[in-house]
C-alpha cells in the first residue's frame, strides 16, 4: 500500500536524515553545556571508529547489544514484550561463571561450547518462568519479566557475596576464570591472520557468535516452521489457534529462545572481557536491547545495524567522557535522541520526504 516513496528512500534516506537530526540536536545540547560540538563529534568518531583500537571497543559493545536486541526481537515476533533481558543476561553470566569455574579448562575451544550452553540454559531458564506464567496463567509478561530482573539481581548478589566470592576478596565477584577459558580477542585472531589489530580491546570471538546468531534468528524466524508459527501467533492468537498452533508451546519456545539469546551476551562480557563474574556485569545492555530491537524493526539486519550504532555511541561517548569534561550522561542524551528520532519520530521525516517524492512524481 505504502509505495509512496522508493524503497531506498524508506530504508536509507529517512533513517539517515533522522540520525542527522538527532545529531544536530545533540550538538545543540553540547553547545548548551558550553562545549564545542564539532570537537566532540570528531572525538567520538575518532575514538569509536578512527582506529582498530576504537573498533575493538565499538564491536565489543555492539556484540552485547546484538544479543540483547535479538532477544527482544524474537519475543516481539511472538508479540511478547520481554523487558527481562537484563535479568536473563545476568543469569547467563552466572551460567558462564559456573561452567568456567567448574573445570580447569585446557583450551578455550572446549570451554566455549560448554559456556555457550551454560549461558543459554541459564538465560532461558530465567525467561521460562515468566513465559510459563504468561502462557498458562495469563500473568502479563511485561510485569513478570520486570520482576525477574529484580529477582535476578538479588540472586546474583547473594551468590556472589556468599557463595562464589573467594574468601578475603573485597570484590563481590568470582575468582578469575582459568586461563584455558580465555577467549581469543579480535587482536589474537587478526594476528593469526597476519593483520595488525588493536591490542587490549575487549572485542573477541563472541562477535562472530553474535553474527552467527543474527543469521540463526533470521533463519528461524523466516525459514522454519517454528518461526512461521511464532510470527503467526504474534500477529493473531485467534488465527493461530484456528491453524492448530499451540499458544502455550509457542510462547514457551519464543521466550526460551529469547532468554537464551540474552543469556548468551554473557559469553561476551563475562567470559570474553572480564574473565570473571562481577555484580552488574550487564550494565543496562538488556534495556538497550529493547531500543535496538525496536529501532531494528525486529529484523536481524536492523538489529545488527542498530547495535553497531549503539556500540559506536557507547564507545564514542565514553571516549568523550574520558578525555573531556563533558559528563558521561551526554552519551545517554545522544542515545535518547537517536532512539527518538530514528525510532519514534521517523514519520516526522518521512512525511516531508513523501511529499517531496510525490511532488516530483507529479511534475
Amino acid at each position, binding site marked *: *500500500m*505504502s*509505495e*509512496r516513496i522508493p524503497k531506498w528512500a524508506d530504508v536509507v534516506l529517512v533513517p539517515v536524515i533522522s540520525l542527522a537530526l538527532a545529531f544536530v540536536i545533540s550538538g545543540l545540547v553540547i553547545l548548551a553545556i558550553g562545549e564545542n560540538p564539532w570537537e566532540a563529534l570528531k572525538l567520538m568518531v575518532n575514538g569509536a571508529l578512527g582506529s582498530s583500537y576504537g573498533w575493538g571497543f565499538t564491536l565489543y559493545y555492539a556484540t552485547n547489544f546484538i544479543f540483547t536486541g535479538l532477544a527482544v526481537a524474537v519475543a516481539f515476533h511472538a508479540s511478547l514484550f520481554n523487558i527481562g533481558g537484563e535479568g536473563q543476561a545476568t543469569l547467563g553470566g552466572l551460567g558462564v561463571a559456573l561452567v568456567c569455574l567448574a573445570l580447569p579448562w585446557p583450551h578455550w575451544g572446549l570451554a566455549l561450547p560448554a559456556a555457550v550452553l551454560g549461558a543459554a540454559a541459564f538465560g532461558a531458564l530465567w525467561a521460562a518462568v515468566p513465559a510459563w506464567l504468561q502462557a498458562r496463567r495469563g500473568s502479563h509478561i511485561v510485569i513478570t519479566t520486570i520482576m525477574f530482573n529484580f529477582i535476578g539481581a538479588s540472586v546474583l548478589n547473594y551468590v556472589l557475596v556468599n557463595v562464589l566470592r573467594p574468601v578475603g576478596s573485597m570484590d563481590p565477584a568470582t575468582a578469575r576464570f582459568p586461563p584455558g577459558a580465555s577467549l581469543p580477542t579480535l587482536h589474537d585472531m587478526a594476528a593469526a591472520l597476519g593483520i595488525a589489530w588493536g591490542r587490549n580491546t575487549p572485542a573477541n570471538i563472541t562477535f562472530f557468535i553474535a553474527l552467527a546468531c543474527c543469521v540463526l534468528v533470521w*533463519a528461524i524466524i*523466516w*525459514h*522454519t*516452521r517454528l518461526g*512461521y*508459527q511464532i*510470527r*503467526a501467533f504474534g*500477529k*493473531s492468537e*485467534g*488465527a493461530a*489457534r*484456528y*491453524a*492448530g*498452533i*499451540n499458544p502455550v508451546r509457542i510462547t514457551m519456545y519464543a521466550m526460551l529462545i529469547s532468554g537464551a539469546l540474552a543469556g548468551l551476551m554473557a559469553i561476551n562480557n563475562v567470559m570474553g572481557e572480564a574473565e570473571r563474574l562481577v555484580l552488574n556485569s550487564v550494565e543496562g545492555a538488556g534495556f538497550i536491547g529493547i531500543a535496538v530491537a525496536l529501532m531494528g524493526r525486529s529484523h536481524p539486519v536492523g538489529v545488527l545495524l542498530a547495535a553497531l550504532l549503539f556500540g559506536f555511541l557507547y564507545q564514542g561517548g565514553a571516549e568523550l567522557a574520558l578525555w573531556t569534561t563533558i559528563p558521561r550522561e551526554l552519551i545517554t542524551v545522544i542515545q535518547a535522541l537517536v532512539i527518538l528520532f530514528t525510532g519514534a519520530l521517523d514519520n516526522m521525516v518521512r512525511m516531508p520526504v513523501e511529499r517531496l517524492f510525490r511532488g516530483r512524481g507529479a511534475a
Partner: protein
Amino acid sequence: MGARQQTERQATAAPAIELRAISKAFGPVQANKDISIRVERGTIHGIVGENGAGKSTLMSILYGFYRADAGEILIGGRPVQIPDSQAAIRAGIGMVFQHFKLVQNFTVLENVILGVEEGALLRPSLNKARRVLGDLAREYELDVDPDAAIEDLSVGHQQRVEILKALYRQADILILDEPTGVLTPDEADHLFRILASLRDQGKTIILITHKLREIMEITDAVSVMRRGEMVATLKTASTSPEELAERMVGRKVLLHVPKGPANPGRNVLEVENLRVVDAAGIERLRGIGLTVRAGEILGVAGVAGNGQSELLKVLGGFQRATGRVRVNGDDIDLTGRRSDGQTRRARGIAHVPEDRQALGLIMDFTAWENCAFGYHNAPEYQKNALFMDNAAMQADAQAKMERFDVRPPTATLAAKSFSGGNQQKIVLAREIERNPDLLLVGQPTRGVDIGAIEFIHKRLVALRDAGKAVLMVSVELEEILSLSDRIVVMFDGRIMGERLPDQTNERELGLLMAGVAA
C-alpha cells in the same frame, strides 16, 4: 427513460446531496475518479459495485471521514465543506459504516451519546438518550437494551445501535454501507421497513449493498460504480438485476449457480450430543446431532449467535466440547491433547472460518504465507527437516491464486491489501485445494460482490460433485436455499429441524430460526 431527461427534471428541485467531480487517491490507489452523483430528497438511493469499486470511500468522504483530493459537495443545493465528521453531523448526515464504529465495552446508551453529550456530566445525557431511544424504539421498531454492552449484542442489534446513533443525531440523510451483510432475512426485512418509513418521513437514504434483490426491492434509484468510476445512475424501476450485474462487473453474471441433483454416499461426519459451555458458563451448544454425507452440502441456517460459530469451532478443533464426533467412522478427540486444528486437518477436515480476518488469515502475512496457513506442517512445504521451502510455498500459492482468480494474483502482497472478496478466495483456495473429505465453511460469501459469489458458489458445488461432504453455515437464506442439499436450522444451541430445500421456503425457515417450531 434516458439519463439526460432525468437530470433535467431534477435540476429544478435541489437534490438532497450532490457530489461534483470527487476524486480521492490512497497513495497509488485511485479509489474515486471524478465522481458526480445526485441523490434526490426523500428517496432511497442504492449504490452497487464490486469489492474495491470505491463505494465506501465515496461515502466516507461525504461523511467527513476522509477528505477528497478534489471535488465539491452540495447539500440541499448549497456547497458545503465537510472537513470532519462533526461537520457532516451538523449538515444532517449520519452514516452506518460497513465495519461498525462502536466502542465494544460501552453500553448502547454510552455509544449513542458519544460526541453529542448534553453537558460535561454524563447523567443528564444518559437520561435524555434513554428517553429518546424509547421513543425511537416505539416509532421504528428499533428495540435494543439501552444498558447492554455492545460486545454482548448480536451483529443485528449492533447495527440497530448504529442506526439509532444516526437518528439520535437527527440525521436527515442516512448512509448505510452494506447493512445487510450480517443480517438474517428477517432482520433485513425489518431494516427495510425502517428505511421505508424513514423515507416516508422525508429522510434521504443511501444504501450500499452487494445484493441486487435488495436494490430492486427498496431503492428508488441506483448508481453503479466500477473501479473508482461512476458508470451509471438508473431509475430502479427501469432496470433489472441482470443489467446492474453486467454494468458492475463488465460481463454477464450468473445470479444463480446451476446445480444438479445430489448424489450422497456414506456418512462422512456424524455428530452426537455435542455440548459446549463457554468461559462465562453459558451453554452454547445443547446436544447437537447431525450427519453430513459424502457428495452433499448440508446447510446450517440460523440467526448469528445461536451456536453455529461454536459448532464450527468444535469441529475445526479450537473449542473444547463434550459429546461424540466421528469422521469417516473414526472418533475424534474433543478435549484431549489431540484436539487441535492440526489433527483435524490430518483427518481430512478443512475449515473456512466465518471470520476470515480474525481467524482465517494473518492479515500481515503475505498471500503465499497465508496459503499454507494451517498446513504449514505439510511435507511439500518443507525443504528438509529444519527448513521450510519458501519457494515451493510461493509457487503453490501462485498457482492456487490463479486457479481461484484472486485479484491481483500477486502472492507477495500482504493479505490485508486484498479486498474482502479476494481474501475469501484465498482462504477458499487454501482449504478446497487440499481436497478434504469434509469442508466446514462459515458465511462463504459475506460481504463479497456478486462476481465473486458466483465463483465461490461454483467451487462449492464442484467440491460436492467430487464426492466430498460440505457443512455450510450461513445467515443468507437465499444462499442456504440455493446451495444446500439438506438444511438444518439452529436455534439457541439446538437443532430446530431439518428440511429439504425444495420442500421449504424462507418463511418456514425464518420461523424455525426464531425458535418457533413449525
